[in-house]
């Protein structure tokens, strides 16, 4: 009985090691959105190109969407942008992956955002203009860029914080979209 007690420190050390191993390995900036599994919150916002155009949550019905949150004030968005342009071109050619790229211009000015798309290329099929960040707030956006995967029923399935690049697309977003497509 006494001898078995001697193993207690060893067990405690192993338990501590496991906790630290799993705790320290996690990336705290990648937190799942609180809205995963919920429909896109209701909104009514103008388009970027045409202020007369109104967009609502109904725009996400019927097709899988990558919703990319960006702003011209955001340096990381500038890094991300060339890949989005490439991705949009690939998606137009890629067989059987029915996903469209929608932009959400977040806390920005219309002129700057339009100039950005003119100069750097426009990967988005539609761009929602969220000047005050109201939709961003309801989506729990706390920085840019962020990218949401929204299924054909308008339900949020995934949120990626930070830049989307080749690796994020190939390892995370593409497989997810393929399962969503298979499920619908």
């Amino acid at each position, binding site marked *: 009985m006494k001898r078995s007690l001697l193993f207690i420190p060893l067990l405690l050390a192993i338990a501590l090691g496991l906790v630290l191993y799993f705790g320290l390995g996690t990336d705290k900036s990648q937190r799942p*959105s*609180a*809205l995963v599994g919920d429909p896109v919150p209701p909104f009514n916002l103008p388009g970027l190109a045409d202020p007369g155009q109104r967009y609502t949550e109904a725009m996400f019905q019927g097709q899988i969407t990558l919703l990319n949150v960006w702003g011209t004030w955001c340096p990381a968005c500038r890094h991300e942008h060339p890949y989005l342009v490439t991705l949009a071109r690939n998606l137009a050619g890629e067989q059987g992956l029915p996903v469209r790229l929608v932009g959400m211009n977040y*806390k920005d000015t219309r002129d700057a955002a339009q100039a950005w798309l003119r100069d750097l290329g426009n990967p988005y099929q539609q761009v929602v203009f969220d000047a005050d960040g109201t939709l961003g*707030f*309801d989506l*729990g*956006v*706390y920085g840019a860029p962020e990218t949401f995967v929204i299924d054909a029923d308008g339900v949020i399935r995934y949120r990626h914080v930070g830049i989307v690049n080749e690796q994020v697309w190939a390892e995370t977003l593409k497989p997810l979209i393929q399962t969503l497509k298979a499920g619908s």
Partner: protein
Amino acid sequence: MTAGLAQPTGRGNGRLALLLCLALTALASPVAAASADAQAQAGTADLYPFPSAAEQARFQALLSELRCPMCENQTIADSGAPIAADMRDRVYRMMQDGASDDAIVTALAQRFGDYVRYRPVFDASTALLWLTPILAVLIGAVAIALMVRQRRRAGAVPDVLTEQQRARADRLLTAASARRRSGGDGA
């Protein structure tokens, strides 16, 4: 002699200085904290006017209970991140609309996740977090109780020496005290 005197007074001076330092820091820190607090409150009072000091205090309490999602270890009261400013605005507007503290915190947690609660709710995923301190105290109490009981039982064993050993110890002790009496003064 002088050295013998100097030392205690020197030590006394050191102790006095230490006491003075402690007293000064004890005095200074609440004053500094209070003035910083007053400054912060004056700052938010301009941006977010309230009809009463109680409402103002409630606002401050709510802000210091919510964590900024952008900068991991700051409350939205402290953080300079744009999203923290948006969250402060939302808290203020919801208070104007008469929302309860709970409704405000829940509304923000629904958007930004339970991450923003500095006081996590009790559910399956946080049960370990809440119960660990209680469990640790219970385990400690049980361990101490067991140890005390064991020690008491060991103490209750009546005689450790046999008759023979006791007799020998007596002999040795008498011999030793006799020796001390005969030659003790000289040493």
